[in-house]
């Protein structure tokens, strides 16, 4: 890990202070405990509820009297011990069987909420009004301490670890700091950044015992609203996409094996719900980051990926794919490239390979580039893990976007004729012919990931897939193309528009002789399936 700098420095220093082994003398812990209890009583008293700022003033005087605010170190120590004390109190309450769950919960909430209120007030009132740096540094430090205590607690208690105190501290502090107050509004973006960094540090891969609580926070309506809707210029989108990537990466190894134990199923369902909310309320967000998400979602998670690929900008009206004689070429939208907020060309590694690729695209030579292509994307001989999937995805999208530019540079528009006979199509045809079943599956998936709403990528890759089908030198390739399209359509909705368009064209247009292929008739259930798909697409079966 590189040494962190910038705003995260304080979070990391907070984490380190938790794990460092400096011994706190018992007197100090006792004093902190005493003061914390005093604060809990004070803030929950009628006068504290009415005028929390006044109660805070009184309490700060007490902290000062006991020397708790003397130096940064002392303050840090106060937070570290207080966090620990609050967590211990909750864990003890949760293990007590005598009380009803509601009573236990209420007891925990009262302590945690009081502590959160104290943190929020300290952050708000630290430094002078104009100095937001002090406030943000303190916030980062405290978040770091809570994160540090969490990680430490998880290692120490492993299976006994409790998510509750941390979840409540984070979400309540988030709500406190997003209240409609002028001081807080000026620092809002830094507050969001601080929380996102902290949640990234506590991502499910690093804190699996915290996963459910983590997802609760990340999908909390206020958190979602702040990150994706209320922050101007979509400045929260990048950070939020990072958190989603953390979630997908954690789920990937469990999902790819399709053996879903109950705990994984629950987290998976939660993820689908979150994606549905995003698809409904923030489709542009899913559009912009679809590439990065598809890179980490395992190929077999069809519906999860369909949710992302079905997103389209809200101001767009998609023509019904089942319209007879729909002319995709005539749609004005297919002239526009979609936004892709992942730097995919930099993912074509190593640099030498990228250089050779560029020179081949330019000169359509040497032919050895094509014969060596497979070796560049294949990383092992182990079945199921033979290929570098992110590289495959980057290669496909990069070559495709270069092809679109190339065709345009010659004053043409991409269609079934103009995409043929070029360096770009050489590469695609070579991949289709030269790769084994696994490689070809991943290659075709990389193409199908671009079949979305009407845009230049969708149109180009739709033509490419149909061209590869038409020009295939073996039934195996055609069967696999059909498989990739069909398996994305036989799952429940939603289905991406471009995917439907491509599949309908394939079964409708007689040039593809779709119904004459053997794989269509290989098994009665498959044949029935095709017929029912054809019926739902309102296509006449042509024999």
């Amino acid at each position, binding site marked *: 890990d590189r040494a962190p700098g910038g705003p995260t420095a304080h979070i990391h220093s907070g984490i380190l202070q938790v794990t460092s082994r400096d011994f706190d003398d018992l007197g100090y812990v006792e004093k902190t405990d005493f003061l914390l209890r005093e604060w809990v009583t004070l803030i929950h008293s009628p006068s504290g509820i009415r005028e929390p700022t006044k109660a805070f003033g009184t309490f700060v005087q007490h902290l000062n009297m006991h020397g708790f605010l003397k130096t940064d170190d002392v303050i840090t120590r106060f937070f570290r011990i207080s966090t620990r004390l609050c967590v211990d109190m909750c864990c003890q309450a*949760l293990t007590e069987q005598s009380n009803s769950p*509601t009573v236990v*919960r*209420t007891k925990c*909430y*009262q302590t945690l*909420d009081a502590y959160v209120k104290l943190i929020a007030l300290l952050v708000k009132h630290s430094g002078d009004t104009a100095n937001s740096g002090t406030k943000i540094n303190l916030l980062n430090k405290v978040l770091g301490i809570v994160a540090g205590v969490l990680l430490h607690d*998880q290692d120490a208690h*492993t*299976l*006994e*670890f*409790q*998510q*509750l105190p941390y*979840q*409540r501290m984070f*979400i*309540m502090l988030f709500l406190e700091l997003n209240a409609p107050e002028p001081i807080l509004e000026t620092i809002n973006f830094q507050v969001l950044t601080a929380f996102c960094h902290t949640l990234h540090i506590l991502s*499910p*891969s690093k804190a*699996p*015992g*915290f*996963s*459910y*609580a983590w997802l*609760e*926070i990340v999908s*909390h309506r206020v958190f979602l609203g702040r990150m994706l809707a209320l922050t101007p210029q979509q400045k929260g989108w990048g950070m939020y996409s990072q958190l989603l990537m953390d979630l997908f990466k*954690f789920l990937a*190894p*469990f999902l*790819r*094996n*399709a*053996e*879903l*134990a*109950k*705990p*994984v199923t*629950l*987290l998976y369902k939660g993820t689908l719900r979150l994606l549905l909310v995003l698809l409904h309320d923030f489709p542009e967000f899913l559009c912009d980051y679809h590439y990065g998400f598809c890179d980490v979602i395992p*190929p*077999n998670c069809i519906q999860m990926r369909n949710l992302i690929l079905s997103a389209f900008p809200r101001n767009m009206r998609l023509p019904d794919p089942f319209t007879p004689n729909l002319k995709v070429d005539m749609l004005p939208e297919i002239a526009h490239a979609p936004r892709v907020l992942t730097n995919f060309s930099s993912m074509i590694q190593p640099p030498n390979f990228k250089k050779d690729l560029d020179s081949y695209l330019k000169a359509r030579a040497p032919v050895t580039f094509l014969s060596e292509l497979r070796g560049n994307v294949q990383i092992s001989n182990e*079945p*199921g*893990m033979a290929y570098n999937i992110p590289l495959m995805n980057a290669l496909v999208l990069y070559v495709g976007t270069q092809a679109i530019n190339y065709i345009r540079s010659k004053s043409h528009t991409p269609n079934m004729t103009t995409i043929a006979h070029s360096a770009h199509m050489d590469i695609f045809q070579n991949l289709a012919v030269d790769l084994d079943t*696994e490689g070809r*599956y991943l290659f075709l998936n990389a193409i199908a990931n671009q079949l979305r709403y009407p845009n230049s990528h969708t149109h180009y890759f739709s033509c490419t897939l149909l061209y590869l089908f038409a020009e295939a030198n073996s039934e195996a390739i055609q069967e696999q193309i059909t498989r990739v399209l069909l398996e994305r359509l036989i799952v429940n909705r939603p289905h991406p528009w471009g995917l439907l368009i491509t599949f309908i064209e394939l079964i409708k247009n007689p040039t593809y002789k779709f119904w004459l292929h053997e794989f269509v008739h290989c098994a009665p259930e498959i044949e029935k399936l095709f017929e029912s798909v054809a019926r739902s697409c309102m296509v006449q079966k042509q024999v």
Partner: protein
Amino acid sequence: GVAPLGPVPLQKEHQRQFQMLDAAFYHLPLPSDSEKLRSYLARTPCPSPPYYPQVPLPDTDSLEFYQRLGNETLFFIFYYMEGTKAQYLAAKALKKQSWRFHTKLMHWYQRHEEPRVINDEYEQGSYIFFDFDNWIQRRREGFTFEYKYLEDRDLN
């Protein structure tokens, strides 16, 4: 489920992650964990038969809906669901029915008849008010409603 690329055994790290997730599965977050503390109506989730409504009717969070509720329901929401959107909507609905909130006595008042005295500082007359201690509507004759105790913020 389908694994087109075939299953791959979980690495040690993933096995450890699964164990932790599995343990967390037995103490999942509750809805109340990320909500403000409810002093009166704490959530107590329990299984209810499927033929009972599982979700509230649509549009029950609109002012129109609150205006259709009885007074007593609105008073209940006002006193037992403090600091929620429901309380806000209940207060709004009560105001629409000419109930006024007295910030010192914490009671809702409604004129029983035209006040006998009205000046810049107060009005005086016969009022109906809701007594939350005994949970009943009462009449108060010759009551002086000082305007400094009138809650008159615009609820938007």
